[in-house]
């Protein structure tokens, strides 16, 4: 109950009782309370006129790294005797300092304070500072939310994957590292064709030319170009949240981050779709700016209530047919049809699947029942993965107890081209 109401009610009852009983002392008891209320009215704070500036030591950090938030509050109005300033770093852990301060501010006075936070992957906007001013007796309160600017991205930290071998049927025109299935300048042998003026001399295939007296033949190499790569991060709550509130989603985010980084580093045009709370696209692009966009999108990624992939449509404007798609998902049996539909639409599809079975088994106490259940679920999962592979989908089953980069290097890398060239050079 408001303190004003309590005091007012007591005054009312004291005066009524005193007048009814004709007792001056009872009425007199109401005097200190009445003076108290009058003091609150007289010294109560006026409208708040505060100017707030917020600065962050860093706007993008890795999970667990500290960031210092500094707030500068200037009082442009009447003096404030009892001012409580509250900042709301929702979801972040305070390391040092406090997001709340109780101060007195004279007219024109500035108060500055800092606190340090750390947190998990995410996007933390700071949109306002709450200021509540009271008179010294705490009767009259004025509360305002003063808008401020500032945001903190805690970006997912991911290991770097050096080389991911993909072979989409369609590439873009720019030179890159993806074999383009087109003859021309390159490293890998592609075929033999008739010599054309301008071909370098060392391209001439003397053995083939010797067989035919009237023609010279040149070797042709496979062009390497950049490709369109779409990464789909599966954020469906129904398959990411496991028993006892544990979630495998952070592993999926790590995998998506690592893959996006690897593909962009190879010069590809990469886009991201987070399929969870909303269908959230990061439109395809190249380079460091695109990397930043994807990291920010992954920082925001959250689980959602979407159910199956059947409702998911990949716009052809973003990813033409025969582009490379990479799905990062723990998978469930109901996904098979949706993925086959992707494949039949012409996309080259790689599925990187953090293994929810081994993830959950690792957290369970050992028992016969649990191991039997794990065996059954594992068999079901292996059947699903096998069926996907038979439809031409490349599947990487990632046991999350193992480092992602090792698993992906083993499954998706190929020896560097220069090493292959040495071997084909016929040293032995």
């Amino acid at each position, binding site marked *: 109950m408001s303190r004003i109401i309590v005091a007012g009610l007591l005054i009312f009852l004291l005066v009524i009782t005193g007048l009814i009983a004709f007792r001056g002392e009872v009425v*007199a008891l109401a005097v200190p309370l009445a003076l108290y*209320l009058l003091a609150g009215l007289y010294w109560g704070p006026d409208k708040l006129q505060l100017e707030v500036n917020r600065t962050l030591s860093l706007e993008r950090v890795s999970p667990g790294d500290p960031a210092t938030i500094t707030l500068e509050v200037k009082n442009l109005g009447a003096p404030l005797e009892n001012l*409580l300033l509250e900042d709301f770093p929702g979801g972040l852990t305070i390391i040092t300092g406090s997001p709340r301060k109780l101060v007195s501010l004279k007219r024109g006075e500035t108060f500055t304070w800092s606190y340090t936070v750390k947190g998990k992957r995410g996007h933390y906007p700071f949109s306002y500072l709450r200021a509540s001013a009271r008179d010294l007796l705490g009767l009259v309160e004025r509360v305002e939310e003063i808008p401020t600017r500032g945001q903190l991205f805690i970006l997912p930290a991911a290991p770097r994957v050096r080389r991911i071998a993909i072979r989409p049927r369609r590439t873009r025109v720019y030179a890159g590292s993806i074999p383009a299935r087109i003859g021309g300048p390159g490293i890998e042998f592609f075929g033999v064709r008739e010599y054309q003026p301008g071909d370098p001399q060392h391209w001439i295939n003397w053995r083939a030319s010797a067989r035919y007296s009237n023609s010279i033949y040149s070797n042709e190499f496979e062009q390497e170009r950049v490709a369109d790569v779409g990464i789909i991060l599966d954020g469906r709550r129904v398959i990411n949240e496991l028993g006892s509130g544990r979630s495998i989603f952070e592993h999926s985010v790590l995998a998506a981050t690592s893959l996006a980084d690897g593909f962009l580093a190879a010069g590809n045009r990469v886009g991201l779709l987070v399929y969870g709370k909303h269908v959230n696209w990061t439109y395809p692009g190249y380079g460091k700016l695109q990397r930043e966009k994807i990291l920010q999108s992954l920082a925001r990624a959250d689980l959602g209530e979407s159910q199956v992939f059947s409702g998911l449509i990949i716009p052809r404007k973003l990813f033409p047919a025969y582009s490379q798609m990479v799905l990062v998902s723990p998978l469930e049996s109901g996904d098979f049809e949706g993925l086959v539909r992707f494949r039949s639409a012409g996309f080259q599809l790689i599925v990187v699947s953090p293994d929810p079975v081994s993830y959950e088994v690792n957290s369970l106490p050992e028992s016969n029942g649990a191991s039997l259940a794990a065996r059954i679920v594992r068999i079901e999962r292996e059947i699903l993965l096998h069926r996907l592979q038979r439809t031409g989908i490349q599947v990487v089953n990632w046991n999350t107890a193992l480092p992602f980069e090792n698993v992906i290097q083993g499954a998706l890398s190929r020896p560097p081209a220069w090493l292959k060239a040495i071997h084909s050079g016929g040293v032995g």
Partner: protein
Amino acid sequence: MIAAGFYGAGMIYQTFGLIVFGLAWMAGQRKWTWVASLGLGVMTLAAVIGLLYNLPAPMMIGGFLCAFIAWDLSGFNSRVKLAAKDDNHGRLAQLHLLRLGMVIGAGFGVVMLTRTIRVHFDFEMAALLIIAEVWGLSVLVGRLRRSE
């Protein structure tokens, strides 16, 4: 003080009840902030009953003022609890006590004055004063609430 007044008049059960309530107030204060408002209400009621039973007025008034101060300090304490641990509350506490002292001092002075000044009025006057009190109080509380 109120309990001492009741004890002096030989009202043992009431004294015991007030002491138990006072202890419960102190215990509950740490957990629930509304206990202070309840405490002030009960102590005011006890002071009024004491005055109506002609128990020593200084003790009743003094006890009521102590309960009032406790209620105010409870509100201040709950405000200070919201602040950071490293905030300097000393200056704020000093200013608060100074203002509270002014209010209580003035209030106590007026109360003491009423014990020396005697005004006699009839029933119609009392009724008029009640109406004036209701109106004045409504205006005061209304203005305070609006200014929040």
